[in-house]
C-alpha cells in the first residue's frame, strides 16, 4: 500500500518536458509584453514632452505679448511726455520772446 502511494507520488511529481512548442510560445510572449510596455512608456513620454513644449510655447507667447504691450505703452507715454515737455518749453520760449519784443 505504501509502495503504491510512493509510486503514485513520484509519477505525479516527475518533471515533464512541456515540449518545444510551448517553450517557444512562452519565450515569444515575454519579449512581446516587454515591447508593448516600452511602447506605452514612449507614448506617454512623448505626450508629456509635447504637452510641456506646448505649455512652454504658450507661456513664451504670453510673455512676449505682455512685453510688447508694455513696450508700446512705454513708447506712447514717452512720446506724450516729450510732447508735454516741448509744449511747456514752447510756452517758455514764447514768454521770453514776448519779453524781448517789449
Amino acid at each position: 500500500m505504501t509502495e503504491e502511494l510512493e509510486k503514485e507520488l513520484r509519477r505525479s511529481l516527475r518533471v515533464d518536458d512541456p515540449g518545444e512548442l510551448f517553450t517557444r510560445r512562452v519565450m515569444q510572449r515575454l519579449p512581446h509584453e516587454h515591447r508593448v510596455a516600452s511602447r506605452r512608456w514612449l507614448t506617454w513620454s512623448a505626450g508629456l514632452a509635447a504637452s510641456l513644449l506646448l505649455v512652454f510655447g504658450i507661456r513664451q507667447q504670453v510673455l512676449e505679448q505682455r512685453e510688447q504691450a508694455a513696450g508700446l505703452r512705454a513708447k506712447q507715454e514717452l512720446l506724450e511726455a516729450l510732447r508735454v515737455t516741448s509744449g511747456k518749453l514752447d510756452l517758455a520760449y514764447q514768454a521770453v520772446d514776448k519779453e524781448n519784443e517789449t
Partner: protein
Amino acid sequence: MNTRISKLLAIATLLAAGPVWADPSGKIRLPDLAALEARASETVEVTLDAALLGMASRFLDAKNPEEAGVREIVNGLQGVYVRSYTFDEPFTPQKADVDMVRSQLTAPGWSRIVGARSRKDNTNVEVYIMLSGQQAMGLAVLAIEPKEFTIVNIVGAIDLDRLHRLEGQLGVPKLGIAKQP
C-alpha cells in the same frame, strides 16, 4: 523742563530734515498730487525709469525720422517724469507743492535758464537745468498756467546738440541752444 524738551525736539527735527541738497542724478522728488488728479479734467502722469525707457526705445521706429530723433535723445536718459493736470476752471496749485519742487531746484547743481512770468496771461514758466561740467544731467520744467499745472523732470545725460537737432519736431521750439564746446 518742558521747554528744554521742546527745544531738543525742535533741534532734532531740524537735524533730521537736513539741508536741501540736489540729487546729483538730476532727479527731483515730485509731490503727491493725488488731490489735483481728482479735480483735473485731463491728466498726464508719466513715470519712466531707465528700464522702461529702454523698453520704449526698442519700440521706436528707426525709419520714422521723428521717432529716430527721440531714440537718440532717450539713449542717454535715466528717467522721464511728467505730471500735468488740466482743469476746466481757473485753478491755483497748493503753495506747498510748488515750494517743494522749487526748493529742490534752487539747490546747488541746478541753474534756472528760463524764468518767464506773465501777469497778463497769469502764467509762470520756469526751466531749470543741472550741469555736470559741460554735460546737462537733468532738466526740470515748472509751468503754472490758469488752467494747467505741469512739472517735468528729465534725468540723465541730455545731449543738448541732439535736443537742438530735434527742434521743430514734436513741437520742440527753437530755443537757441548752442552746441557745448
